[in-house]
């Protein structure tokens, strides 16, 4: 697709969004009034898998197709794009690629969002903007400083009951967003098995209160924290997982790049993450947080996931697993 065609496509897609996807009959709509993405009995959650062989292909087209396939409504909403740049290491691929983030910014604006911001609270490093510099976000995303919110140091408000904590604080930008887009990286994780759209929510927790690293979440329990974050924010979220080049082995920091060549999208975060796992050769029913999320926060049973876009059978590429997680391998 040429640049001109791409712009036209985005404009058309934006118009379609403003019109509420008139004529689009598939997909489940956002349900911000509930805490669950669980489809009703007999219904399914749509997950779109779109091939993207590299970061140089027309990502806007790929992203837009996936979003449309999932029936996401964006028009008029305040959108927070949440990439993963927990750390930086030039020798591997820890972060959501800048091309994915820049394209998502463009796509969600074109879909008629009232406002689109990018927010992240890195887990280990204090100077978030310096990490954004290293990841090329600041140099390659236009007016990055104007659209970026350091979630570690945003103003906060309390919410009641987060796991066994009576009060827990979250950034106001997170609490006030109409739609959070989890722009996760497809990676293995040496404590959780895999880190995808749900685990990516760790970056929503403010370091100004919980520190660097966000040790509070480890004491609550990594799996429990993933579930709680999804319970709180899953209903107003959309997952867009960068699996073009993921990370295998000793992820999420010290693994090695692994090309999967896909973007995976959907409003049911558990369904998206389960689909990613199957692409990675991981059995989602053996990933503790997905097992516990199943039929509570979303679905992971393939019979209840409505696969759209590319069939995943031909996309599976086994991600190397550390020996502690070898039992996660999909049969």
């Amino acid at each position: 697709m040429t640049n001109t065609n791409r712009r036209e496509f985005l404009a058309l897609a934006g118009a379609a969004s403003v019109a509420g996807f008139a004529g689009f009959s598939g997909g489940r709509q956002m349900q911000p009034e509930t805490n669950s993405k669980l489809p009703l009995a007999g219904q399914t959650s749509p997950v779109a898998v779109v091939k993207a062989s590299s970061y140089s292909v027309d990502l806007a087209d790929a992203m837009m197709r996936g979003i449309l396939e999932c029936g996401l409504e964006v028009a008029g909403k305040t959108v927070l794009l949440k990439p993963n740049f927990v750390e930086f290491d030039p020798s591997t691929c820890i972060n959501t690629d800048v091309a994915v983030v820049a394209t998502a910014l463009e796509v969600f604006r074109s879909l008629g969002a009232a406002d689109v911001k990018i927010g992240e609270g890195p887990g280990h490093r204090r100077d978030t903007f310096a990490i954004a510099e290293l990841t090329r976000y600041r140099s390659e995303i236009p007016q990055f400083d104007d659209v970026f919110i350091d979630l570690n140091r945003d103003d906060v408000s309390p919410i009641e009951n987060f796991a066994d904590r009576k009060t827990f604080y979250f950034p106001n930008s997170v609490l006030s967003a109409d739609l959070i887009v989890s722009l996760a990286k497809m990676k293995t994780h040496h404590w959780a098995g895999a880190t995808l759209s749900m685990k990516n929510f760790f970056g929503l927790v403010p370091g100004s209160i919980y520190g660097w690293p966000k040790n509070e979440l480890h004491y609550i329990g990594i799996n429990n924290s993933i579930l709680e974050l999804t319970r709180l924010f899953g209903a107003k979220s959309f997952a867009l997982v960068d699996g073009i080049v993921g990370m295998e082995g000793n992820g999420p920091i010290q693994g090695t790049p692994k090309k999967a060549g896909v973007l995976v999208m959907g409003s049911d975060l558990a369904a998206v993450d389960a689909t990613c796992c199957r692409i990675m050769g991981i059995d989602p029913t053996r990933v503790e947080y997905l097992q516990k999320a199943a039929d509570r926060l979303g679905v992971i049973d393939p019979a209840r996931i409505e696969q759209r876009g590319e069939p995943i059978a031909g996309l599976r590429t086994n991600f190397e697993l550390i020996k502690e997680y070898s039992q996660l391998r999909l049969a």
Partner: protein
Amino acid sequence: MYYGSITLRESKVSADSTLVPGHPSHSASYLGVRLDALRKNQNADGGWGYFPGKASWLEPTAYAALALTGDPAADRAWKLLSSWQLSDGSWKPSSEVSFSSWGTSLCATIAIARNEWGDPLRGGVNWLVGSSGIESNWFNIVVSRIGLVKQERNIALKAWPWKPGNSGWVEPTVHALVALKQASAQLATRDLRDRIRQGEAQLMDVRSRDGGWNYGSPAALGVDLPSYPETTALALLALQGRSDLGKAFDLAQQQIGETPSPLARAWLTIAMRLHGIQPPELTGPPPSDLMITAVEALAAPEGHHHLMQTGAVA
């Protein structure tokens, strides 16, 4: 990417617009511009947010108060911070948040800088002496000693957490050590001295193989983790007076030339100054990040970095 002069994060606060003619610090100097930017962005409650127009937080307020020591703006900041001290002697991190925080150390350092050695400081110091990472509780130590759980650091050495109920990490440990070392000039007790000794030993125990420090884990699952410039700088701040840090200075010299982080450069500059090493010159406009602006002001040649001086504690 740039190295050297500060060009990151173009200031949204024009240097010229922050200058107040006739003000004592009216100056286009690196320090003067930063102090003026801080004065201009002080909130009505006396504190500073991390960014202009945001709610006041302890951390940026504390650094700004130190940078502006002697200025009426610092008095207003201290008045606000004083109102955030809790009944157990600790400080909470903002008006919104209700529990104790590592920022207690920064408030103790401010109190000492202001030569206020009364009950608020004593309460804060006592709280710090009694505070430690949860990994160092007796149960975990026993479990570790009998080999049921393999630890990648010596948990018998007590560090300080970001908040109670969490593990100890490098940055809160550094600021606790600075505060307690300074406090030891007048408030020395055996417990305080013991915590200082343990804290220093703990920092040395979590040093990365490259000679510096990261957030506090030199390895994960047996794989070495590299140091970061900002935490290496902070650890050097806490370890003033030691003579066994040579490799860390070589690393700091390298990091200050390579890091894109103005925060890391400012902390490295402070650490080098306090260890008697001439750092590279800091240049450029202040960032829109008020916490970094304050730390940069402390790092300036004529800045108040000496307020973090501790020397060695016997």
